[in-house]
């Protein structure tokens, strides 16, 4: 029986390059239940990170009591990680679930029935529409709903109401991923595949602490680095993460650039490709635009200059560039260390540039994975609930807008397309100034997860805006709402979602939701019907009612677009494995990787955007785009490094950065209600380097105050592995599980310190660049609660005083014969 708190990635199943990743089935059931006792297994996939591991939900007596990995699923080959195993089901039967709608009466939230709650929403909504029109309405959603729910919300917002004020918290986690794809390749869509891991010779992880964010994917990499002919690992991260350790083991490189200097480093790596003749000139000539501009942009970034800006060793820059320049097949992955840091889009685009300069794309082992944080973030982007138009359509292209108008049978003028959709940060600005007067928040907790959280709480609680919150629990955000709607969660409703490498899964309803809770789809449709939205012929809009009908409608919306779902159906998704899009007549079993023909969706009539100035976010016009005649070639785009907006000063001498731990997800709504996960990471902490701790007289476990110009937290210190000059705080910890503490009165919420500043292109907030100071306020009474198993491990000197994190409930792992995976290149070569 395995303790997967202590052993995060499970036992190794090493294998050599070019061979299939072996299958293994991981399983956890509640205490005292055996596999034989389970009444039913219900097909699904895990929603506790973006990896999308296929799993079956165990049901007994109408209750979800555990999960089992699906060996036949192409994503995880049967494995599950600690969050999936321990966190997937316990929350559902938690006694504090919301079970009835609530409305605010005389300042207090009181329980009521659906008619009253929805009646109140409709009354306000209709009044605002009459007074000032649809721009008074804003929707802030999530990266956790299903395709059916996003698409329905998108249609209500765009065709029913006609408001551009619609975004998801995906803005906080993956907006840069989408934006960088659009800038380089013309449209969103993950070029690479997880199967690249089996075929590459080097893996570059940029600001991506994969061992903690996507544990099963990291296990897949470890099975290569511990096998024969392993890939070399290059790690770009200011902390000494397990990725950095693996870089040492594989003769790779760990680059720890100063916070906020990623782009300078990327420009340095790019320059090395040019000066060492590692550029595939013929390929670049045939398939890209912009090489001359890029060359001159990066020209001045010598390794020495990069060393000075980033605080890294110039020779390490050369070594990393050499690995990129000389390996046959390279996989790059990117995450929050880039997305939530200064010059996010430009730095992420630079990763594409490196691949394009070497023609390193579109074949097994040569790929890019711009990761997502949340399980269904991809669908938010695809379906248009983040403000983009559904199906990766271009809001600046009248034909694309007309296609949607035809599909929905509405006047194209209803569909807001006069300007870029309103991003989350702007949405809250409008709610603050009172021009958005109705804000509908679904399945997300901005009172904890947005930057400058004190300001966000003030906006949500103020009288200027009517706030509706729809969630599983009374979150910190729900407490401030005017109407609270109880939602059904994963396993309590049916729907589909797509993971980071385009693999679509069906998640079936396993149990009934508690009390009067309803699925987000039902709630959105209830609103649409009550508002009486109709199309041009007076038919109900949206026209569908069930999840499957919604999926079929969505499928039509993708016809002819890069994100093509037309070959998919619920029936097909009930098969052995999730299926990666595009799925259509040409690719009936799905598509493992994009751009194998080196044809990119950049044509002016096809592309999702005409592009932006990476420094300012200024938009390129259609005419300018046409003049460049991209015709399927990818864009090489560069930008100069500029210093971050907030640099350390005398008052605030340290750089503050936020992040996550392997045992928690988001604001712990689900993971915090799992016994094993909660015990492993029960409370907030802050990490300091040995040098800074020594200078400030701080030892392991001391209580410290961390202050920025915007706020402060008081938490225990871990003397750990972060680079000198930097301070790291996990962002998961709000107030919901603290007795008698109101939001704002607790002292551990990392986003009290972060600043409201965002990337000019992707509009993703920069959670990772702020200045702070740290002072000790009390002596330690024991070690800090930071886990010891991954990047938050104590520095070597302190390691012996801190007990190792362990004690997860038992799970099992069983090796099984490796099945045939339809699109897996390692099995195709076996066959031929």
């Amino acid at each position, binding site marked *: 029986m395995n303790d997967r708190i202590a052993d995060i990635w499970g036992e190794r199943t090493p294998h050599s390059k070019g061979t299939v990743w072996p299958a293994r089935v991981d399983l956890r059931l509640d205490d005292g239940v055996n596999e034989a006792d389970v009444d039913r297994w219900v097909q699904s996939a895990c929603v506790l990170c973006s990896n999308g591991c296929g799993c079956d939900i165990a049901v007994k007596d109408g209750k979800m009591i555990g999960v089992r990995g699906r060996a036949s699923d192409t994503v995880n080959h049967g494995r599950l990680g600690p969050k999936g195993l321990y966190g997937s089901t316990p929350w559902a039967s938690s006694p504090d679930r919301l079970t009835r709608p609530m409305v605010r009466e005389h300042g207090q939230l009181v329980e009521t029935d659906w008619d009253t709650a929805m009646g109140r929403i409709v009354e306000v909504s209709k009044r605002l529409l009459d007074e*000032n*029109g649809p*721009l*008074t309405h804003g929707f802030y959603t999530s990266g956790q709903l299903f395709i059916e729910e996003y698409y329905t919300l998108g249609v209500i917002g765009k065709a029913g109401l006609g408001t*551009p004020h619609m975004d998801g918290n995906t803005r906080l986690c993956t907006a840069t991923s989408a934006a960088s794809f659009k800038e380089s390749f013309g449209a969103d869509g993950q070029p690479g595949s997880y199967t690249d891991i089996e075929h590459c010779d080097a893996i570059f992880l940029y600001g991506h602490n994969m061992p903690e964010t996507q544990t099963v994917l990291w296990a897949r990499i470890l099975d290569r680095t511990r096998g024969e002919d392993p890939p070399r690992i290059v790690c770009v991260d200011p902390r000494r993460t397990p990725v950095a350790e693996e870089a040492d083991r594989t003769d790779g490189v760990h680059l720890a650039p100063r916070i906020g200097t990623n782009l300078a480093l990327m420009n340095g790596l790019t320059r090395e490709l040019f000066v060492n003749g590692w550029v595939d000139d013929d390929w670049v000539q045939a398939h890209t635009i912009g090489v001359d501009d890029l060359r001159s942009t990066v020209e001045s970034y010598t390794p020495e200059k990069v060393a000075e800006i980033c605080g890294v060793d110039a020779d390490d820059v050369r070594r990393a560039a050499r690995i990129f320049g000389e390996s046959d097949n390279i996989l790059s992955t990117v995450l929050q260390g880039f997305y939530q840091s200064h010059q996010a889009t430009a730095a992420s685009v630079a990763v594409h540039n490196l691949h394009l300069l070497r023609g390193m794309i579109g074949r097994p082992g040569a790929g890019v994975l711009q990761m997502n944080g949340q399980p269904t973030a991809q669908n938010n982007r695809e379906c248009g609930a983040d403000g983009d138009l559904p199906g990766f359509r271009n809001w600046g292209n009248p034909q694309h807008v007309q296609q949607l108008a035809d599909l929905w049978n509405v006047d194209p003028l209803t569909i807001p397309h*006069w*300007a*870029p959709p*309103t991003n989350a*940060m*702007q949405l809250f*600005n*409008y709610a*603050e*100034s*009172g*021009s*958005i007067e109705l804000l509908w928040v679904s399945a997300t907790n901005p009172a904890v997860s947005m930057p400058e959280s004190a300001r966000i709480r*003030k906006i949500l609680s*103020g*009288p*200027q805006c009517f706030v509706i919150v729809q969630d599983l629990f009374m979150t910190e955000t729900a407490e401030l709402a005017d109407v609270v709607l109880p939602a059904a969660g994963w396993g309590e409703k049916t729907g589909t979602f797509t993971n980071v490498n385009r693999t679509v899964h069906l998640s079936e309803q396993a149990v009934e939701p508690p009390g009067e809770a309803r699925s987000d789809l039902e709630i959105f449709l209830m609103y649409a019907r009550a508002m009486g939205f109709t199309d041009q012929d007076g038919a109900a809009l949206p026209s569908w009612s069930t999840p499957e009908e919604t999926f079929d409608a969505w499928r039509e919306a993708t016809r002819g677009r890069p994100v093509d779902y037309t070959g998919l159906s619920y029936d097909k998704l009930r098969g052995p494995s999730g299926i990666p899009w595009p799925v259509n007549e040409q690719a009936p079993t799905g598509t493992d990787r994009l751009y194998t023909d080196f044809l990119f969706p950049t044509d002016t009539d096809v592309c999702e955007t005409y592009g932006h*100035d990476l*420094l*300012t*976010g*200024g*938009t390129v016009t259609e005419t300018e785009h046409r003049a460049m005649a991209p015709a399927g070639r990818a864009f090489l785009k560069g930008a100069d490094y*500029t210093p971050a*907006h907030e640099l350390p000063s005398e008052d605030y001498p340290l750089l503050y950065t936020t992040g996550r731990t392997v045992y928690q997800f988001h604001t712990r709504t689900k993971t915090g209600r799992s016994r094993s996960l909660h015990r492993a990471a029960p409370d907030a902490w802050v990490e300091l380097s040995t040098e800074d701790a020594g200078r400030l007289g701080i030892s392991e476990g001391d209580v410290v105050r961390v202050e920025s110009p915007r706020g402060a937290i008081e938490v225990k210190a871990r003397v750990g592995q972060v680079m000198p000059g930097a301070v790291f705080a996990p962002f998961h910890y709000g107030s919901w599980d603290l007795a008698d503490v109101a939001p704002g009165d607790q002292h551990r919420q990392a986003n009290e310190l972060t*600043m*409201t*500043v*965002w990337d*000019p292109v992707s509009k993703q907030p920069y959670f990772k660049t702020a200045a702070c100071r740290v002072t000790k306020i009390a002596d330690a009474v024991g070690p800090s609660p930071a886990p010891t198993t991954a990047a938050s491990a104590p520095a070597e000197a302190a390691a012996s005083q801190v007990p190792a994190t362990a004690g997860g409930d038992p799970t099992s792992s069983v090796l099984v014969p490796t099945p045939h995976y339809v699109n897996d290149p390692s099995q195709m070569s076996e066959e031929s």
Partner: protein
Amino acid sequence: MPHLSTYVALADRSEQTLAESLRAIGEGHANIADVFHMTGTLAKMSDQHREQLAPVVARYGEDDDVDEPERLHAAGLAEARDGEIGLLRDLQDLHVLATLVKTTWTVIAQGAQGLRDRELLDVSQAAMAQTDRQIRWFETRLKAAAPQALIVTPKPAAK
């Protein structure tokens, strides 16, 4: 070349005016985070143009005695207007200032061609391209701000 030196002086002065105005508008709309930060970034572009122009100014000598282009000198924006409508108007004014800067560089680039003054040509062409980026941002931001500012009447956000 009295007129060229006048124009060089004009370029220097209008870049200065643009940079100062950008900073004033940024401070005035400090609650709108992207405006605050981006105006700072764009102001630095104008600072940089002046630095690059400095050696040329030294060569030609700064001469702003000539009357005619003097009338072209636009007044800067000393402070920002209030609210979302105010932001729209401020962006429009910045657009006007930047357009003056751009045409000034256009004129200078033509003169530099005639004189085969490569240094001045490089400086003016690089500055012109950057001014385009400034203008593009004003347009992008205007478009984004306009519908909400024009259609929805903001109420004061009182607690």
